[in-house]
């Protein structure tokens, strides 16, 4: 069983408060995040493939009183898989890494990824020492994940099994300097 990506993103962010900061991966999860509603506390990525989880780590360590959700795709996570070891060592209690896994590189023509071929990211995350590791395959466990994002208490990793559906792109702001400035202003760290 798998979930539809836009609906899954909407469920995860429903009732979002100002304490939640969100970093998507580049590509489909970035469009999913934009489709869920623009927010100054989103830092959209249009590049830097493999870097989403580590941006989340730097942010989570810098902002221990806020919660950080990295919501990326399986291809992006695979490129930066070492970050799971780095995060497993740091164990920031306010960081969640959520991977929307369709086993495909959706943005480039739906080529199969290693996750689609059997690589199990939940086992990798658990093996790296990340405290809570979830395999989300149905609405009930998605609702559980959404509830956990409202009050993190230890580093969380979740793989969300999503379908192959490719909804239309929703493109957010793409000026990196503007994205950075508005994000920092929103959490009160400017200048």
């Amino acid at each position, binding site marked *: 069983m798998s979930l539809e990506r836009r609906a899954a993103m909407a469920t995860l962010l429903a009732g979002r408060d100002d304490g939640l*900061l969100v*970093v998507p991966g580049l590509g489909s999860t970035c469009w999913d995040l934009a489709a869920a509603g623009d927010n100054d506390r989103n*830092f959209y990525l*249009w*590049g*830097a*493939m*493999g*870097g*989403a*989880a*580590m*941006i*989340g*780590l*730097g*942010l*989570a*360590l*810098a*902002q221990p009183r806020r919660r950080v959700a990295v919501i990326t795709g399986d291809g992006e996570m695979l490129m*930066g898989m*070492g*970050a799971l*070891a*780095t995060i497993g*060592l*740091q164990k920031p209690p306010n960081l969640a890494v959520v991977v929307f896994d369709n086993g495909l590189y959706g943005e480039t023509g739906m080529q199969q990824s290693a996750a689609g071929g059997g690589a199990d990211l939940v086992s990798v995350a658990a093996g790296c020492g990340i405290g809570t590791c979830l395999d989300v395959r149905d609405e009930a466990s998605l609702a559980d994940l959404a509830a956990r994002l409202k009050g993190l208490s230890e580093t969380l990793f979740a793989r969300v099994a999503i379908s192959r559906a490719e909804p239309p792109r929703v493109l957010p702001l793409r000026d*990196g*300097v503007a*994205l*950075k400035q508005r*994000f*920092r202003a929103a*959490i009160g*760290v400017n200048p």
Partner: protein
Amino acid sequence: MIAPADWPDRLFETLKAGGVRQAGYLPDAGHARLIERCRADKDIRDVVLTTEEEGVALTAGAWLGGARAVLLMQSSGLGNCINMLSLPRACRFPMLMLITMRGEWEEFNPWQVPMGSIVDPVLKLCEAEVYRVRDADAVQGTAERAVQRAFGDERIVAMVLSQELIGAKVWTK
């Protein structure tokens, strides 16, 4: 005259005084003392990385959250960072890199030369300002300028520590 072995301590003190609160690193013998000082300091979070590009992303995330971070690496690690340096270039994140050189002065291992020999042009292509240090007496002043430039003006600044400064790796022990 500062004794040569003291420069990593001067470097650490400059980073600390400059408000650096996260240090991402891949180990290098030339950075051993600085890493040790960062690990021992309760105000600085030391983050050992699996690849240097992780540190580029870490540093960007830190700045998004209002914190200053530094990235320590050996020259060979710069090659691992090139695409990720798109992040500070596209978003103008401050990126302070301290790079210890291999593959130049008195290098024993020829496999270090291919990357070591292209560090300066690669940095320039990535729009980094390059501050090279060969002399222990210049470390602190250069580090102060690098900190100010990186965080004060949101620039990529690479402080490149020459092999003459660090000393050649000892291969027989």
